[in-house]
């Protein structure tokens, strides 16, 4: 079995490590030189639940959580048949992986001096490569990470983290958005930009906050996908912009035109 066929075709990648990082959250590490050498922060891969089987049928999208050498990691939340099969993949077994897919975060844009990462739940998967880039390039940033309680954080690759929990078991007692609001209200924050990924409610709140303080905000969306590559039209997000919209005038495709969008582009 070859581990690397053609750059743009699906590839069978051997799993080299499996670790549980929080209840219901498993990280799989697999060998994939192409993805490891080309992926940018915010891109994702589409992974078949069971190599060689058509049930479950569709691939599942996962942010590329981490890369090291020729290896990549994804983080799997076990919430259904497909993800449960994937979460139970063992070292030595293979994953059928297509990617990297989607457009990266606009992390090199010059509309900010300081980045603010707003993270909730498994949205964390979109943040480590972004963190790595900011650290490496000495871009100032901070991370506001919210969860229900202190057992649910997956912060191994994050930095400069301010924690918020719904039950007060770690860090700020409340949401990461209220924590961030407190900070923003304290003083002037020249040229910050929010990068948000998490539950829809959190991203809506992040957009509202960015509107209020008049700062740029980019959100990374998660939708149902059938193909992940722009052919099925199954992953629309409503847009207020009319340029460069492929599916008529009303929608962007999350898989190719996203998954991240500027707050002005979309309606969520």
């Amino acid at each position, binding site marked *: 079995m070859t581990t690397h066929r053609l750059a*743009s075709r699906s590839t069978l990648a051997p799993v080299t490590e499996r670790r549980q990082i929080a209840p219901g959250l498993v990280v799989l590490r697999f060998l994939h030189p192409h993805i490891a050498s080309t992926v940018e922060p915010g891109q994702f891969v589409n992974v078949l639940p069971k190599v060689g089987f058509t049930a479950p049928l569709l691939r599942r999208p996962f942010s590329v959580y981490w890369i090291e050498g020729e290896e990549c990691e994804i983080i799997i939340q076990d919430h259904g048949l497909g993800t449960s099969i994937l979460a139970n993949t063992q070292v030595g077994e293979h994953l059928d992986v297509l990617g990297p897919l989607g457009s990266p975060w606009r992390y090199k844009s010059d509309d900010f001096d300081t980045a603010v990462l707003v993270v909730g739940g498994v949205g964390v998967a979109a943040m480590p490569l972004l963190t790595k880039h900011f650290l490496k390039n000495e871009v100032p940033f901070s991370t506001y990470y919210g969860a229900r309680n202190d057992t649910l954080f997956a912060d191994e690759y994050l930095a400069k983290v301010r924690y918020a929990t719904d039950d007060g078991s770690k860090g700020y007692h409340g949401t990461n958005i209220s924590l961030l609001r407190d900070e923003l209200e304290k003083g002037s924050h020249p040229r910050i930009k929010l990068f948000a990924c998490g539950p829809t409610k959190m991203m809506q709140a992040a957009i509202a906050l960015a509107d209020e303080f008049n700062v740029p905000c980019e959100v990374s969306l998660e939708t149902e996908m059938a193909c992940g590559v722009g052919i099925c039209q199954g992953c629309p997000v409503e847009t207020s912009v009319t340029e460069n919209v492929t599916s008529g005038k009303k929608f962007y495709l999350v898989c190719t035109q996203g998954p991240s969008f500027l707050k002005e582009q979309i309606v969520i």
Partner: protein
Amino acid sequence: MQPSNGTGEVNLKVNLGNVEFKNPILVASGTFGYGSEAAKFTDISNLGGIVTKSVSWKPRPGNYPRRIVETPSGMLNSIGLANVGVHVFVDEKLPYLAEFDTKIIANIAASSQEEYCNVLEHIESHATPNLAGYEINVSCPNVKDGGLSFGTNVDMVHELTSALRPLTKRLLIVKLTPNVTSVAPFAQACEAAGADAISLINTVVGMSVDVFTHKPRLATVTGGLSGPAIRPIAVAQCYNARKNSKIPIIGIGGITSAMDAMEFFIVGASLVQLGTINFVDPDAGTKVINDLQELMKQKGVHSVDQLTNTLVIEERMKALGW
């Protein structure tokens, strides 16, 4: 590995009307876009043909999300014929596809007979050399206007096909819906009206409900079921059409492998289309072509014609009327 396209012991070529397809594996409308996205993941020149996403006169934005739900061995979709409209189609999509060594079949969806005719004539007047013909979608379950209201009415299918026939010498294929009691009268109506072939099936109306919120999972409540889950329905409908008409059949529904395609040939299809499997693997067509060649070799079959309509029914069952 490149498929051999008809050289060697196995000849994959298939003729339909006056068109020669280099192999019988096409990709289905709506499951391959207009080719450009999939071209990043597969060599689309390997395919026997590409049926493009349904086009209407004006662009359509498609339905509100949610549009996709996975179901056992299949998926429900409610895309709502999102498409670029016929003008962008002829200005950008057809010329792009003209660069590839494969046959193009333009699928048309509309909400009136007049619109079907206008779209076909507009494409006809901008035809590219590899445009082999048209597939008329009278079977989309996910739009309020047109779609199924045509495809479930035999008289309307006959009238529409008769109206379109004089407008082109290229292939005229009518895509039928499984959402009828029997597909036989529809196959006969298309044959009588002069269509070159029928393609079947389009998706099966289906629904999925979230039991926590009591809401339908798809925004449009119901949608179209596709994938391996519908293959037995599709095989049965192709069989029924073959028994009751002579019109050539293009089999569609849940095909994921050469074995699956073979089922359709045996019950009477001359060609097949791969749909949902393209979402799982955009390179699926090439794999199926290669495997089909191997499989035919193993069976000692030299051409697809030798497979088409070769169903064997036991004599005693025939005697009982089966």
